[in-house]
């Protein structure tokens, strides 16, 4: 089967048209987690034995683990036996029948963001027959990439087509024992993205899951693996600014990045999952483990994230700087409003000599939002001449919200230089009045000031994404002042 027909099949997921495979009797397994469920998932995905074994090891390990409680987030206990861990690709009839059935508020937001109708439908989970424009776009991109030897496909496809690469790198950055959610993900992950950039190749375009809509419904336990071979460069975009609906409350994704000698990986995220309603009901729990390994010398991994959605965000995109002269970067804007909670930050683990890291974190809290930056800078004894600069700024809007900063610094090599700057401020009356006196209305003034506050992060995003992110922040702050 060719890539494009597979893409199309998943995309359309229309049972009568493409004769939905008959050997799968159930579309969804009953709620609950045990070894049989894991075997079933693995079997349905026709996985090799080693992968099933890896999943089972993870599961057995997970049984003995406890949900972490150190983060500054609060939520009722999750019943892991109440979750269904496998769902077949969406079929027509599952979701809303047309855009007319979609929450008008959501549609208003789509329209403000200028999202084409066809994409609106996909984002809102409307079962569409086929979106031929998008398919052809995706297909033409794929052939362009293939010319350069770049592999960009779903994780399941990679397991089938490139098992050696997957086996070599899966779990090499985030081991299955890593943490409660990563371990759970290792046991039950559904699908995700796989990228391999061959030596010396500069990926000619921003890679985005956006062009691979088939992967947009891989749901709650997504697994992403990106490998940049020697001298390779790739920029990967995850998510999109449009609000995404999902009936699954718990999301526990794992992302692993590996950069070999002289390779660079730039990973940008705009996260706008459903945050729950204004009273704090519903909303996604986003418990994500993201980590990059600068394995080779002179390698570089740069994380940029704009986190505006989810009821709870718990994620720390990190860099393990093993290669000599390797560079890790983390740029983050996290916005919480209404009853959203975010505990996010990064870990920079310096192992190699002359490794450098930069952290720029901007937290914005409005309404009852709670925003915590939690970051670790660790300089190991081997990391001669390591450098880190961290800057953590918080902006408060209103008097019901909170901002918290938890920087952890562990230095085991006296030649290291570690700098940490932090600030907490309110949008000042003076700033607002100054803008207003120039004719700029209150809401626009707030957007202007907040966007200025975020500029150091937005400028790290690919151009188009940056414009969208700015619009998104403006939308998110509507009505939060005054």
């Amino acid at each position, binding site marked *: 089967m060719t890539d494009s027909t597979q893409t199309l099949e998943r995309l359309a997921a229309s049972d009568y048209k493409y004769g939905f495979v008959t050997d799968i009797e159930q579309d969804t397994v009953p709620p609950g987690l045990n070894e049989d469920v894991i075997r079933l998932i693995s079997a349905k995905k026709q996985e090799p034995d080693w992968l099933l074994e890896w999943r089972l090891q993870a599961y057995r390990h997970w049984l003995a683990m406890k949900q972490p409680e150190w983060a500054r987030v609060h939520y009722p206990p999750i019943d892991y036996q109440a979750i269904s861990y496998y769902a077949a690709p969406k079929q027509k009839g599952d979701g809303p029948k047309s855009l007319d059935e979609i929450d008008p508020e959501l549609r208003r937001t789509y329209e403000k963001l200028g999202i084409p109708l066809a994409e609106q439908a996909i984002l809102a989970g409307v079962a569409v027959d086929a979106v031929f424009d998008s398919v052809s776009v995706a297909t033409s991109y794929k052939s362009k990439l293939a010319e350069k030897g770049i592999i960009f496909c779903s994780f399941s496809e990679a397991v089938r087509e490139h098992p050696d690469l997957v086996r070599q790198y899966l779990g090499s950055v985030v081991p299955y024992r890593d943490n409660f959610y990563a371990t759970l993900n290792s046991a039950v992950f559904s699908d995700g993205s796989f990228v391999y950039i061959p030596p010396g190749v500069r990926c000619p375009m921003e890679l985005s899951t956006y062009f691979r809509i088939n992967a947009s419904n891989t749901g709650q336990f997504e697994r992403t693996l990106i490998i940049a071979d020697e001298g390779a460069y790739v920029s990967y975009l995850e998510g999109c600014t449009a609000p995404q609906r999902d009936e699954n409350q718990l999301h526990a994704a794992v992302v692993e990045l590996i950069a070999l000698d002289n390779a660079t990986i730039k990973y940008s995220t705009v996260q706008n999952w459903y945050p729950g309603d204004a009273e704090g009901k519903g909303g996604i729990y986003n418990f994500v483990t993201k980590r990059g390994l600068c394995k080779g010398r002179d390698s570089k991994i740069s994380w940029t994230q704009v986190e505006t959605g989810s009821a709870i965000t718990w994620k720390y995109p990190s860099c393990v700087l093993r290669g000599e002269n390797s560079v890790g970067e983390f740029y983050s804007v996290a916005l919480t409003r209404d009853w959203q909670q975010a505990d996010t930050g990064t870990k920079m683990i310096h192992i190699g000599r002359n490794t450098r890291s930069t952290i720029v974190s901007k937290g914005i809290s409005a309404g009852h939002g709670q925003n915590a930056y939690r970051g670790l800078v660790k300089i190991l004894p081997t990391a001669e001449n390591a450098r880190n600069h961290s800057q953590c700024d918080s902006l408060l809007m209103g008097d019901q919200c909170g901002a918290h900063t938890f920087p952890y610094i562990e230095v085991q090599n006296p030649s290291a230089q570690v700098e940490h700057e932090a600030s907490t401020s309110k949008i*000042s*009356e*003076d*700033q607002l*009045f*100054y*803008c*207003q*006196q*120039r*004719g*700029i*209305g*209150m809401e*626009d*003034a707030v957007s*202007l*000031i907040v*966007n*200025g*506050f*975020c*500029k*150091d992060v937005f400028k790290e995003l690919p151009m188009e994404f940056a414009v969208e992110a700015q619009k998104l922040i403006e939308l998110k702050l509507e009505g939060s002042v005054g």
Partner: protein
Amino acid sequence: MLEIRNLHVTVEDREILKGIDLTIRPGEVHAIMGPNGSGKSTLANVIAGREGYTVTQGEIRFDGKNLLELEPDVRACEGLFLAFQYPVEIPGVANLYFLKAAVNAVRKYRGEPPVDAMDFWDLVHERMELVKMDESMLKRSVNEGFSGGEKKRNEVFQMAVLQPRFAVLDETDSGLDIDALKVVADGVNALRSPERGFLVITHYQRLLDYIVPDHVHVLVNGRIARSGGKDLALELEEQGYALYNEEPGRARRAAV
């Protein structure tokens, strides 16, 4: 164009302005002088609509409109400009971007389309020369890291681009050396026109050597103690404000 009638203003229950009457007609430049704490900046802020000031009596009309009913941004869109005594820093927002947002906000209010990029660029460059401003200041964040002189120059530059019908300059001369003062004054003078009114607030007479006012008012203890022509400023320079402070009774009579 600006009429202030019996204006009483309190700040945190303390009366700062105690009955101000002032009429400024198009084309006129009025100067308000007075010692520290006399209420000069309060007057500027109340005209512009800053929060924290309570008008207990009186009114301000701007071309017949009740100014006190309008939000600060609406007042600005109506053509009122305040050059701040302490210009505010807005990190991460480029000066040029800020100015364009302001110009377009005013245009929107008037029902006009956003400014043409080329037209705007031409206008900005023309006005930059007026205040001898360096182009690099356009790209820097609004007032961030600007020297005292640069900030004040930037205020006059913004005024020159926005071309308000009425401008209040709140101690724009403070902290300026003589060269910067001249530049700022030249900028203001270039904007003087038969349609435009100015209220220049200053502690020192010096500025009025360069921006020659039509009328001078002495504000003491929340009241206009005396009004006169441009020579009044010179007189104040010689005698100081002590006269008015010590004998408020006499000063009041002098104002009548």
